[in-house]
């Protein structure tokens, strides 16, 4: 029996927060703080009209988290403005990804959302010259050891992170959405073809690609552990874009075209079962037909995903959770690289970790 994932339940049904005792409310707030979701949770609760009924101390914590999130959003918008100026201004095509895109497009899910860094995509062919251009305009490569540098260059779908000299902001420059040698290799030209131009001239993924990118990040590339925010992103994108039936019509075909049906299947499955995302039945069936994994895989994934979404708090720490997180961690790497380089990479990581802990 898995413990009750309070934060997940609060996002699925914000009204329940009103009935929580002190102990549970504290656990919920701790979990939200750890996942960086306090401000987003507070807006969800406000939307249901029960914010005023919560203890004053909780409302103060919410107000503080919102203030911080607004500050981050302001900084993010300024970063995007500068990147737009430096890259688009010099003729480099640029697509905004993730948080930067949600903020630039003014999507409801940008409300209270905090991102650690800015993510953009440039065409593979212009990657090197775009990097040089950015470096000459103040974004400096973050110090990495030789191995990590080689890893990024050889195995990753993004450049080693850049950090702005004055603002300290981190920038990830991608050329596609998955590592080039991973099991799934969507063709990035599709993203460019259907990208949407915003009023200020920046471009973002079209709605279906945005949703697919979140699904991929969660279930193909990421570690799922601590991925509750990603699942909430997926849910909110579906809620927002799903008001247009065209979104649901295009979703599965777009995933088929890009070869991303498996991660989409998982995202739809867990968003609807855990967060109550409304997915039209034909879409669920279509995704299942195209992307359902074999029964044993499904049987293993369900409990593992549920426990990996639990926070790393003492209340939730169990050997089972640890095993699930480890399995999903290995899975994410398994999907990312061919077996031999993977074994080498994991050994190296384990060695570095052990070494760092003892020195």
């Amino acid at each position, binding site marked *: 029996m898995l413990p009750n994932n309070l934060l997940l339940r609060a996002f699925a049904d914000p009204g329940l927060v009103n009935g929580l005792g*002190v102990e549970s*409310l*504290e656990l919920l*707030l*701790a*979990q939200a*703080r*750890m996942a960086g979701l306090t401000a987003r949770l507070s807006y969800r609760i406000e939307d249901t009209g029960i914010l005023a009924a919560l*203890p004053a*101390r*909780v409302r*103060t*914590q919410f*107000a*503080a*988290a919102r*203030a*911080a999130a*607004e*500050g*981050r959003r*302001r*900084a993010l918008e300024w970063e995007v403005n500068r990147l737009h100026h430096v890259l688009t201004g010099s003729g480099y095509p640029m697509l905004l990804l993730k948080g930067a895109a949600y903020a630039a497009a003014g999507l409801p899910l940008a409300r209270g959302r905090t991102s650690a860094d800015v993510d953009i995509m440039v065409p593979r062919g212009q990657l090197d010259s775009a990097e040089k251009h950015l470096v000459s305009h103040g974004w400096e490569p973050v110090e990495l050891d030789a191995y990590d540098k080689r890893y990024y260059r050889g195995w990753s779908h993004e450049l080693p992170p850049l950090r702005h000299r004055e603002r300290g902001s981190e920038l990830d420059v991608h050329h596609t959405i998955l590592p080039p040698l991973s099991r799934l290799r969507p063709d990035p030209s599709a993203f460019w073809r259907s990208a949407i131009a915003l009023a200020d001239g920046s471009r973002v993924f079209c709605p279906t690609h945005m949703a697919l990118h979140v699904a991929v990040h969660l279930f193909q590339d990421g570690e799922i552990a601590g991925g509750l925010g990603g699942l909430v992103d997926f849910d909110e994108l579906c809620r927002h874009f799903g008001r247009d039936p065209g979104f649901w019509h295009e979703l599965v075909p777009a995933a088929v075209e890009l070869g991303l049906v498996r991660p989409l299947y998982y995202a739809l499955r867990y968003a609807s079962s855990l967060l109550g995302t409304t997915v039209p039945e034909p879409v669920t069936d279509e995704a299942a037909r195209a992307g359902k994994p074999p029964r044993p895989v499904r049987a293993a994934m369900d409990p593992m995903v549920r426990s990996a979404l639990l*926070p*790393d*708090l*003492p209340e939730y720490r169990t050997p089972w959770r640890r095993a699930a997180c480890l399995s999903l961690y290995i899975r994410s790497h398994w999907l990312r690289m061919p077996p031999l380089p993977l074994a080498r990479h994991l050994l190296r990581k384990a060695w570095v970790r052990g070494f760092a*802990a*003892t020195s």
Partner: protein
Amino acid sequence: MKIGDLTRDQLHQRFAGPGLRTRIGPFVFRVHTPIDRFVTDFSAAYADFPVCDENEISDFRIRVTPAFRRWPWREAQAEFRADGESPFRTFPRRLAMPFAEWGLNWCICSHAHQFLIFHSAVVEKAGRAAILAGPPGSGKSTLCAALLARGWRLLSDELALLDPARGRLFPIPRPVALKGTSIGLIEGLLPHPRIGRVFAPTHKGTLAHLRPPLEAVECQAEPALPGWVVFPTHAENADTRLVPLRKAAGFLRLERNCFNYDALGRTAFDALSQLIETAECYDLPFAQAAAAAEMVDGLAERQLVTGLPLDAA
């Protein structure tokens, strides 16, 4: 009920069981720990702070717990976690108290954005607060203690919490962290200093905690309006004097001591402008803390005579 009213057994029972909830300034901390030595140190330094009711929701849940010791010949380790997050790796268990104090600062600075937070000491006299701002080593703790000896009330030794909406400074009269030679200095300055165990050596040198004055803790719910902003700098051969600063310079100097100025944006600018508008700003190079305190005290005396020209709107 205060922490000091609990017996040893009651303390251990709370800390090891449901956690001890205590109100420290505007915050409620819920502290869990099974480490005896930390229970002793913490409850001595925080003896005058109120214990909260079980039904009072906390702002931060703190756990100070033994950590895994990789090699048997290394000294026992502990770790600090606040709501699952930690600002640092493990540390020697005997230093749990100073590390927990840094941890509490970290909690406040990274989450309490309902306030504009400055790295400074704050003391109050006759309803007006003096903000003593400066980097570590500038002598603000020593000056702060010297002012306490002259009857000023301690609002905070480390963090100024400014409520941006109403321009008031909220007290958080936690133990004063004394480093190195200032331990001896303060023993000489204060009539009845209550200094706890001396921790040596930490990465910041020798360290001890001065238990906050009883009156400061009893008045920890009473905010004060800012009156002065003072930037002390200690130097052996300094000519001790108050140098008036222009408002713009005071603004920029204080902004540099602010932890969350960028996060609060416009709110921060407006609140800081308002503060600087109502407060006088001074540089204070000093050699002797007692002499410097006398000068700051003079500011408050003058205010009592001339009334309060600084009143906030």
